[in-house]
């Protein structure tokens, strides 16, 4: 995580979980970066990564995805896995960050 902070990049996790649930997760896993709660999946929908009825009892949730957004607010890199088990490796995200200068 410090490799991201050294590059001036913040990592932000977003899900439909409530702040209390995310807090539990952060405590148990020792995560220190911001976790944001999108209970109605509004932002998730805007980014086009909604998984309709993907959660328990038909709840709309997010599909796994990573977006790199530059300081001007433009999306510069996107990673969309096709398997919930496989997420972007930190190396891949760092490589995308190092290409940002251009």
């Amino acid at each position, binding site marked *: 995580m410090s490799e991201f902070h050294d*590059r*001036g*990049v*913040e*990592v*932000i*996790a*977003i*899900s*439909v*979980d409530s*702040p*209390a*649930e995310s*807090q539990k997760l*952060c405590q148990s896993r020792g995560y220190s970066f*911001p*976790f*944001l*709660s*999108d209970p109605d999946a*509004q*932002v998730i929908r*805007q*980014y*086009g*990564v*909604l*998984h*309709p009825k*993907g*959660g*328990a009892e038909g*709840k709309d*949730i*997010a*599909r*796994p*995805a*990573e*977006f*790199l*957004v*530059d*300081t001007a*607010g*433009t*999306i*510069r890199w*996107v990673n*969309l896995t*096709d*398997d*919930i*088990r*496989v*997420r972007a*490796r930190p190396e891949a*995200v760092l490589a995308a*960050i190092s290409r940002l200068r251009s």
Partner: protein
Amino acid sequence: MKRHRNILIWAGFTVVIVALVSYIPIFTLFPVTRDIPWANYLLFLLGGGLLAVGVKRAFRDPEHYRGKIAGSILAVLSVLLFGFFVVSILYFGKQIPSGERALRPGQPAPPFVLQNIAGKQVASSELLKGHRAVVLVFYRGYW
């Protein structure tokens, strides 16, 4: 002659159970063992091997070893558990919508205001102001 308890059958089955249940709490924590669950496949192989040796000796040498029935049942169960594991990995993990509707590089990132774990409203504009870039990680959550 006294017949021995066929320990290999039970040891093998135990390893198969471990192979099945260890994936989520242990091996998903490391990308190397998560993306392709080779550690669990190896455990299944080890458990299956032990079980196979146990069953073989129960049938070859029934005067010394027990476990013809238990071994057969556990062997069938192990095959089913392995099948369940493989199907879970190859099928259930991929039951997510395609990413074709997702925003693409070059498009503006929609601004947002969301609550953090302390219940405080956090605006994306504030996050961007203080950083060179942000990585938004959308995840399924634990609901």
